């Protein structure tokens, strides 16, 4: 009787715990479904329009395809090897590099100084911040059209002004001469992009301990000294972010160049992005162009990853 009893109670215990496990699995399963329901729309959209094209980009680059033929020929690394022999592609890469350097010179320190000046104003800080940000609100199409008219050799205000004060010899065809075209484009792009960096600097400046400046004042330090030994070191993290963003944006540049010069004259302002666009959509060298764009993508991603790796290490 006793034995009988205990065994039956054991049986019941087993059943109980089994049903508990089952119940737990059920809860776990239900939880998984809930989480999935939060993520699924994003996963689908991301897979169709980002992940799949990423895989396709790599795939295309190993084939020979004109975009219309029903079959693709596998050619291995041929497209990449051809790129290293392509004078225009190499030139375009060089222009990208020049674009990066010029952007860094024009954007980082001048924008930092502007932000410092704005942060020193007691009344009207918001007004200046909003005003100086205005160009960044405009679309690149607007900026491109506007600046190509400003640079216009005949009717553009720059040349009209130079002629009116008798400096006709300085009036140039800004977008038509080999050595002026890239600097002219970088100036337009600086105008379009500096606002974002100004905002980031202003946010960074707010976090600097004001007492440091007061101490420096007591020591009789001048404004340049203060900028160099207090502001810049305290803004190290912001500066890192800004510099990396300037570099990445310079590598990605397309719209302004396409609108203002289409890479001309004679490829003098050709960047990788404009060259790739032309190769794919007007010369029908689809797989070759894709290989070029993969190279650009890899440069940007490798730069971003390395940069973030070092930044995290230096911040810890």
């Amino acid at each position: 009787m006793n034995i009988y009893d205990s065994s039956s109670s054991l049986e019941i215990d087993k059943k109980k715990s089994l049903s508990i496990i089952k119940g737990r699995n059920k809860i776990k399963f239900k939880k998984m479904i809930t989480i999935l329901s939060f993520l699924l729309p994003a996963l689908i959209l991301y897979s169709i329009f980002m992940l799949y094209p990423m895989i396709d980009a790599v795939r295309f680059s190993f084939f020979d395809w004109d975009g219309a033929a029903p079959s693709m020929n596998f050619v291995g690394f041929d497209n990449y090897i051809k790129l290293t022999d392509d004078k225009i592609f190499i030139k375009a890469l060089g222009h990208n590099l020049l674009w990066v350097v010029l952007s860094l010179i024009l954007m980082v320190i001048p924008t930092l100084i502007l932000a410092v000046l704005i942060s020193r104003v007691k009344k009207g800080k918001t007004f200046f911040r909003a005003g100086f940000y205005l160009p960044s609100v405009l679309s690149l199409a607007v900026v491109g059209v506007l600046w190509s008219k400003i640079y216009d050799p005949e009717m553009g205000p720059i040349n009209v002004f130079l002629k009116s004060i008798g400096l006709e010899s300085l009036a140039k065809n800004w977008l038509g001469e080999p050595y002026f075209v890239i600097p002219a484009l970088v100036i337009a792009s600086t105008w379009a992009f500096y606002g974002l960096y100004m905002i980031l600097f202003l946010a960074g400046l707010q976090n600097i301990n004001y007492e440091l400046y007061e101490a420096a004042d007591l020591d009789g330090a001048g404004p340049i000294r203060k900028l160099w030994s207090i502001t810049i070191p305290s803004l190290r993290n912001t500066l890192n972010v800004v510099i990396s963003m300037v570099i990445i944006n310079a590598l990605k540049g397309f719209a302004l160049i396409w609108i203002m010069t289409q890479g001309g004259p004679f490829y003098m302002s050709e960047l990788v992005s404009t060259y790739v666009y032309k190769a794919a959509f007007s010369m029908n060298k689809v797989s070759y162009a894709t290989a070029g764009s993969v190279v650009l993508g890899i440069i940007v991603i490798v730069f971003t990853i390395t940069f973030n790796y070092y930044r995290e290490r230096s911040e810890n």
Partner: protein
Amino acid sequence: MESRVKRWKTSQLTLWVVLLLLLLLITAPIFYAVLASFKTNMEIFNTPFSLPKSWNFDNYINAWNLGNFKQYFLNSAFITVGGMIIVALVACPAGYAFAQLSFKGSNLLFYLVLLGMSLPVQAIIIPIFFQLKSMGLVNTLTGVTLVSSGLALPFSIFLMRNTFRDIPKELRESAAIDGAGEWRTFWSVVLPLAKPGLVALLIFTFMNIWNDFLLPLVLLIGQEKFTISLGLYSFQGEQTTNFGLIFGGTVISMIPSIIIYIFFQRSFVEGMTGGANK
């Protein structure tokens, strides 16, 4: 003491004057465009820096009607509003999942988001074109809307994750104790608190899609489908020397973003600093 106050006041005054002059210099191209949009070609050439003789709206009217800007405007509005709705509906739940729910593989998925953020569009635009072609969506506004939303997704998820991460988890837990399901908690407890982040997301999406150039350039072919950016670009190509008319179109293209900017200035700043400083 008095002299110090005085010195402070004069230094503030100098600062003001310097900044004001700089601001005028920097915004001069915008003023130039606005003034030129009221002028005839002759006036732009002869008196480029003066006020127009009369405030003549002909350039605007011609750009709007003959230059098709009306159609471009509607197309841009369709793509932008559609994109904003899709991005908000998709990125908010995903950002919430990353910030508040713990699940296996969340790190791996988040790396995908970060990868998407650093990937330049140029690297995948060619396959996107052919993908859309196979779906029959090249040269359709729907196609551009979908692609724009997809490409906006990584940054949007990132922004919403940061927003939701700042909301204490205890709130969610106490809602769960009260018997609310996860979606209900998300919708009626957490989302209302994330309103500033949501506003920033919507403005960001608006600006990105409304101002985009590359996607419409690659994905739209017929002029009747052009967005305002693409329309302005082709307009300047057709009207190369008609400066007044081009500036009319340029100013029309500026107006929507400037209006949004004036109304939501604060959210701009918050969205940007929130997005960049993790």
